[in-house]
């Protein structure tokens, strides 16, 4: 029997698929100067042994504990001081220790993004920043989105528009908020009939659009070598159906998530441009989604060729 849950959160983050905290990402307010490159490699281990079927949190012995490993190589470039470009492609591997369904692995979606700094204005003892971000992602392999809970991703093209507002005190403390809307195209599945509160006679499934919000507090210490950050991240689908009782999930599901995380970033003083980071996140609330706990880390190297 297919006891399957939603394929994971979509790729809403670039350098940091599924772990909203690190690196110069499309989620933060950091800009690289013109001509700078950043290469990054992050590793994420997520797992859950409970999931939300609609709003009911339950276990499923035929899945047991599901694990999802994501390795993301990323590249960023400073086109201008105030306009940065990003590109990333995660590799994802999923499996579970219950039941007899096979896990899958492969390259997921390629993301490209542009982040601009439209405002950095002195205010009291700090600065206010405003940064819009546009991001596009599309699958790079023929993975099956309709294979919950093991699927690598949603199998759609996604377009995200984000606005980031940050206030940073000169002493290093900062608060940040961001809001994004994610538009998603339909995903092509490998059957041409499915139930989504009614019959559908098509190979295409409507994947809900979503809002994504994030509130962040962080601080720079040790002369900007060390950064601590905490995030509260929310995803709210604007439509979609619930996983039916003891049934498999599918890409049409309404996925909601409330997640918190903490991250630490360290810029290695002896090796200019090199940074390491680590984070931990956990899911507080959800809908049609695994109750994920994630732990991850990465290394980034920033350099200038000009």
């Amino acid at each position: 029997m297919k006891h399957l849950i939603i394929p994971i959160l979509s790729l809403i983050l670039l350098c940091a698929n599924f772990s909203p905290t690190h690196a110069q990402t499309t989620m933060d307010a950091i800009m690289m100067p013109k001509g700078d490159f950043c290469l990054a490699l992050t590793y994420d281990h997520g797992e859950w042994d409970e999931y939300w079927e609609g709003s009911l949190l339950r276990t499923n012995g035929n899945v047991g504990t599901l694990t999802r490993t994501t390795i993301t190589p990323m590249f960023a470039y400073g086109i201008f001081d105030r306009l940065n470009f990003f590109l990333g492609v995660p590799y994802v591997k999923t499996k579970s220790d219950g039941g007899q369904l096979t896990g899958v692995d492969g390259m997921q979606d390629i993301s490209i993004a542009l982040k601009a700094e439209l405002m950095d204005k002195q205010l009291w003892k700090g600065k206010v920043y405003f940064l819009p971000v546009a991001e596009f992602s599309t699958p790079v392999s023929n993975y099956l989105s309709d294979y919950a809970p093991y699927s690598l991703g949603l199998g759609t093209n996604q377009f995200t528009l984000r606005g980031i507002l940050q206030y940073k005190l000169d002493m290093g403390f900062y608060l940040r908020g961001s809001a994004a809307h994610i538009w998603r195209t339909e995903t092509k599945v490998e059957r041409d009939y499915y139930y989504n509160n009614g019959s559908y006679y098509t190979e295409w499934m409507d994947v809900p659009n979503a809002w994504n919000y994030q509130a962040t507090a962080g601080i720079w210490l040790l002369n900007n070598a060390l950064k601590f950050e905490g995030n509260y991240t929310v995803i709210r689908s604007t439509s979609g159906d619930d996983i039916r009782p003891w049934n498999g999930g599918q890409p049409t599901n309404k996925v909601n998530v409330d997640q918190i995380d903490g991250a630490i970033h360290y810029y290695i003083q002896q090796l200019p441009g090199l940074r390491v980071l680590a984070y931990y996140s956990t899911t507080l609330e959800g809908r049609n989604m695994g109750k994920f706990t994630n732990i991850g880390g990465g290394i980034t190297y920033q350099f200038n060729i000009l």
Partner: protein
Amino acid sequence: MKNILSLILAVLFLGFISSCEMDLLTEADYTDYEFSGLDANGGTWATTLIATPGTIVVAAPTDVTSAAYIAELASLKAATTRLNSQQIEAIEYWSNNPILRWNEIALELAAKYNLIPAPNPDGTYTLPSSTDPGRYPNFPFAHPAYTCRMLAYLSVAQFDGLIVAWHYKYTYNRVSPHQADNTIPAAYVESNLPSYPSDGAVIATVSQNILSAMFPLEKGYLADKAAEHLFSLKWAGLNVDSDITAGSFIGTEIGKLALARASTDGMSKAQTPKPVSDSIKTAAFDRFGWQWDNLEAPPRPVGLAPLFGRVRLWNLPNVELTRPPVPPAPGSAEFLEDVEELKDIQDNMDDEKRKIANWWSDGLGSYTPPGHWNRFAKDFIIKYKMNPLRSARTFAYMNMAIMDAGISCWDAKYYYHYPRPIQAIPGFKTILGTPNFPSYTSGHSTFSSAAAEVLAYIFPNEAATCRAWAQEAADSRIYAGIHYRFDAEAGIDQGKAVAQYTIEKAQADGAN
């Protein structure tokens, strides 16, 4: 710089938005059409639930020159004027072949109710109860056995009802309202089909009654559907009230007979208690030295419908006639060869095999394999422009063969009680979930092969296509890792053998 950024954003965004929002079909995309024939002798065709059409007595209608009929025409004319958009949509939706729509409704309810019970917190399972359908797990669990039976009763009742309707149509030959008074608009392609009794009303009423019994929690939904359908007959200018009353009467009477048969066909005993299930398993072990076990966590104590193989057949004289030969014993050379094939497929899964496995998966939450074949039949009916009577005939023979095939398959499944690949092959993983019943023979193969044979008989031009689909459906289970090749091959042969009995009946029913 801001301008460049704005431009890039605008292009990306517009390009993206314009590529989304496709139209996702929720029902067959067809409109009313001219029937390829009217089958004026349809009232003489063989019936299944009644001996002859005259068993159901329908009085002669009033003459088209009578005051009563003229009053009915006036009422109809009023009903066809100033239609609102909802009424116009209803006319288009129900069309002049509403058999197709009721079949779609049946498939939708199958998919809605095809949900397997979840375990209780203490690891036990509760079964759906027909006497308390609203308690979780809701009744019914519309698994393939339940669904094939539901579809058989629905289509056989529709077919018998329409034979009765045709019998009286061509006995009384009442002209259509539009022919009686050409100021009454005809929403559909005109035809010379006599209008009394209304074939649409037969279909609406009998379908509502059968489906309400099969899906008791949907009574309200089905009543709304039937009411809209019956009203649409008037909005479309198709039938006067007396046509509709007579049609509904036939539908009611045939529905009672069909449900009387259903109430005593043995289905209520198919899902056995554990001691009976255990004795069936022990009998198989004693006979053959193997047994199937459910491997879910927690394990389900009883497989799906162990005694579905004893349910009353339609056209197959007895279930032993098509019981397949003993499968290869676990560990035998033939068995190991098919196991090697399964391992090889899973180790080297490719896009084509994955797609075939998923395309035919028709698993939990779907309309099941019988539903899939009903969908094919619907598409052929539209392609070949069948009238409602001939459409009902197609569904009835196909669904009788599918149900007989299901009964025959379940007989084999629980007689041989053969372990699934996940049980027989240590560490074996699959790309689809393994169902809660024994392996031999493959249900997909048996259902599909029986359905394909009947469709091949009815649509000779599509015979090769249908048989290729059945073979692909059989192969799909091997690719999915949930059946051995010998399960699939035996299932194909079994379905074919079962279907012959239905085809022989169809060949002699007077419709050829």
